Structure formats: structure tokens, C-alpha cells
């Protein structure tokens, strides 16, 4: 899967979770950029991303990923396996 497609699908997940149609994520997007993205919403987001792409993050990744770029890298590495 191409990176652009992953970002496209991620945008939909983010818009759905945070109820904000104007969200556009980039590799540099972090929890500071989206108002409602706190530790409580983080886990809902993770589960929604897992469902969208049919993958599983491990707990280490859940607690250490720093931005959307890292999330995309993990998604790509899982899907290309």
C-alpha cells in the first residue's frame, strides 16, 4: 500500500474519532496539534486504526509512538509482511 493511501485512510479515522472534518494529518502531526487527542482518546484512536488496517500495535508502540509519521511507518511495516 502506498503512503498516500495510508494517510488518506488515516484522515478518515482521525476525523471520525475526533469529530472534526477539517483534520488533515501529516507525518509531523502530534497529539499537541489536535485538541482532543489526550491519553484517553489515544487508545480509542489506536484501536480504530488497528481495525481500519487489520493490524495490531504492540504495547511498546502504543506508548512510545511520537507522531503520525511513526504510526504510518509501523502500519507499512505490518502490511508489507
Amino acid at each position, binding site marked *: 500500500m502506498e503512503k498516500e493511501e495510508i494517510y488518506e485512510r488515516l484522515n478518515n479515522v482521525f476525523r471520525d474519532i475526533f*469529530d472534526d472534518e477539517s483534520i488533515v494529518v501529516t507525518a509531523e502531526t502530534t497529539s499537541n496539534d489536535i485538541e482532543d487527542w489526550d491519553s484517553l482518546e489515544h487508545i480509542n484512536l*489506536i484501536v480504530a486504526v488497528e481495525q481500519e488496517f487489520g493490524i495490531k500495535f504492540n504495547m511498546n508502540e502504543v*506508548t512510545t509512538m511520537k507522531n503520525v509519521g511513526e504510526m504510518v511507518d509501523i502500519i507499512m511495516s505490518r502490511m508489507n509482511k
Partner: protein
Amino acid sequence: MELTSFVFLMFCLLTILIYFIIPKKFQWFILLISSIVFLFWNNFNISTVIQALIVLIPTYILGIQIEKYSNTKKGKLFLIIGIVIILGQLAYLKYTNLFLTTAKHLLNLINIEYKFTPVYRDSLIGISYYSLIMISYLVDIYRGVCKSQKNIFKCALFMSYFPILSSGPFIRYNDINEDLYGKHEFDYTRMCNGLVRVLWGIFKVLVISERLSIFVNAVYGNLGSFNGIFIVAAAIFFTLQLYTNFSGSIDIIMGISEVIGIKLPENFSLPFFSKTITEFWRNWHITLGAWLRDYIFYPLQKSNIIQRLNKKCKEKFGKKIGKKIPLYLTMLIMWILIGVWHGGAYTYIIGSGLLQFLFIFLEDILEPLAKKINSKLHIDMNSIGYKIYQIIRTFLLFSFAMIFFRATSVSNAINIIRSIFNFDIPLFTNISLIELDIFDFIILIASLIVLFIIQLIARKGSVREKLSRKNIVFRWIILYALIFAIIIFGCYGPNYNPVAFIYKQF
């Protein structure tokens, strides 16, 4: 060993002196010896040695095994065994009375008479800290975050690193192992920075916290004798006492560790500027919150049970409300656990658990309503006035919950709350019960103003960094002022009975 005692300061001085004199490859070993001395200082007997080994040996062996079998069923089994051993001992030593009291209440509900005598078991200092720290070590190995420690003595140092035993913060193996076992050069600037922090911590504890405790103890100890205003003042003062004691202890701990060259995670970030209780807990006892988030909240929220519940609730109540129900459930579990961790009594479960959950829950569900009301009344929620109102409200809510935290029992807490309405007692009756003179009150108010100003400056960046950019004369004046303030205004010596660090009993 009290953190502000002369013995402790000498103990640190000696440790640091030897640490920088001996060959660097033995440095970590000196820390281990100091840590063992500190761990058993007040409590050295066969049972406490066994207590420490019950955590150390299984954690050491299982850590290596979990690494070997990571991501397999066997690895998971080893992890569970480790957690059960560590938590089992912690519960046995700390929470037996809580279980017995709960059993008593439950049996009374179905009309069965059950009586028990409370049991008090000797436990090592820091057991509530090192137990959770060792659990995080095992889980991190299982998750692949860190490698296991193959040297049992190094593992023992990680478990017992002496600065953190009395009041935290919680450390993670991956963040600290390089510093802990690494070689450190003596650094003059680092020493000065660390020293300023230690002094600031001692100032908070001895000048502010100890003095506040005299007021709080007098009022709470003579509930029927004071006008309600004094009860409210005591509740507010207790929150300040708790904060200056706990954050002051953390300053001492972090300052000492800084001199050694081992960086510890921050545990406070100006909590009293928080506008909601939710925000407050992101800035108060930060490392405990992070521990619970990573090792309880996330795994619970991701678990199949909660996810299934999530799906069902969304189908039944719609997306917005549906996803909140399982969230509130996991939060409730987490807050009860925070309460239990703070001490095996209902006062802690209510004060630092259930009430905090209630406030956060109400903040969340009432937010839309508050927005509507404020817009109808044309109140600008971004104005400074509104923000100040929110900050004061958060402080008062937290102080209210701390009435339970401080109380000797739930009924005592209810008595305190009732006493708030004691308006028929004339205002300054029995004021002589508070053993503070006008001089003490002036020091108290002045030092609280200093604290407030420092915190205002700290909002715009590290105060110590700003200080280090000033010229040397100014820096020494500040340093000497701190030392003299502590010596002259500190509450210690034979006439005072310093309360033990509030957090150390956990």
C-alpha cells in the same frame, strides 16, 4: 532517615564523596551499598531482608526468562507469575486490613457478625514504589521495551536506588539504566544546580509545610473548638502542606540525584495552575499517572472485554455516548486502584480515588452544558477572569477531597465537613490551641508569596536556568538567602515534632 534530617544530608554527602573518589567502574556499586544501607536503616531484621529478596530474586530470574520467551505463552506465564508474587506480597503487607474491613462490611450487609483486630505488618521503606517499579521492569521486558539485567547486583540497585525510596518518582529501567550503571565525572555546575534544588526542597518542607502542619493538626485535632472558617482554612492549608511536603521531597531527591549525575523524571508541573481536575492530575504525581496509564489503563482499554463492551454500547447509545461508558468504567477501576495504592484505607480510596473520579466524570459530562450556559450569559470562557475562577475552583475541589485523605476515618472526614458549618462559635475562640505566633504567620504568608512568585516565574521556563544566567554575586545572594531562611525560619529542633513525610508511609 528523614529527607530533611542532618543524618540524611551527611549520608548523601558521604555517598557522593566516595562516588567521585573511587575508580569509575565501581561507582554503581557504591550506590548499591548506600541504597542497601538506606533501605534497611530503620528496619533491619530477618523478615525485612526476606521481604526485599522476595521481590528481587524472582524479578531477576523471571526478567531473564521473559526476555528469552518474549511474545510467547511461556513468556506471558512468567510475567504473570512475577506480577502475582510482587503484588501478592504488597497486598499481604499493606492491604490486609482493607480486605478485612471490606469483608466485614459485606458480611454485615447480609447480617453476619464479623469482627477482626487490625494487623500491622512491618514493611520496608519504599515498598509501594519499588514493587510497581519492578512490575514495570518485567512488563517492559515482555513488551520488548528493554533488555533484562543479567547482573543480580545491578538489578538490586535498580530496585533500591536510595533517593527514590521515600517519595518516588517512579523510574523506568529503559530511561535510567545508562545513567544508573554509567560512569560519571564530577561536574561543578551540575553540583550547584542540584544543590539549589535540594535547598529549595528543604525550604518548602521545613519552612512552609512543617509550619502549616502545626495549624492543620491543631484545628483538625480540636474540631468542635473552632469556627467553620478555620476548618475551611485547615482544609486549604492541608492541600498546601501536602504539596510543599511532597514536591519539596521530590526537589531534594532530584537535586541529590542530579549531583550524582542520574537524571530522574519530573513528578510535578505546577499543578495549582490547572483549570480542571483532569489537567490537575496531569501535573501532580506525574510518574504515578504515567505508570497507571501504561500498565493498567491502556491494556484494560485495549482488552477484548472492554472493546466488546465498547461495540455494544455504541450500537445501543450511539457513537458519542457509547464510547464513553467503557471509558468511565476503566477510569473508575483506575481511580479505585490509585486510592488503594495511596494506603490501605477507605479514606484514601474516597479522597484520592473516588472523589477525583467523580470530579473528572462531572467535568466531562457537564462541559457541553457549561458552554451553553456561559454563552447564554455572555461569559467569555477565554477571559483571564474565567480562567482564574477555574483555577480556584479546581484547587477548592481538590482541597475538599483531601479532607478525606487527611482524616483518620470516613466518619472523622464527615465530622470535619460538618464542622465547616460551626458558625455559632465566635471567630477567634480557642486560637491559642494553634501553637503559631504572629511571627509564624508572617513567615508563613511571606514564604507562600515567595512560593507563588517562583511558580509564576516557572510558568515561563526553568527558574534555575534563569538563575544560572545571572551574575555570580546575585546567584550567591540567592543561595545564602535560602540557606539562612532554612536555618532561621525552618521548623525543626526539640520543640517541634516534624511530621513524617506524608507520602513515605505508602
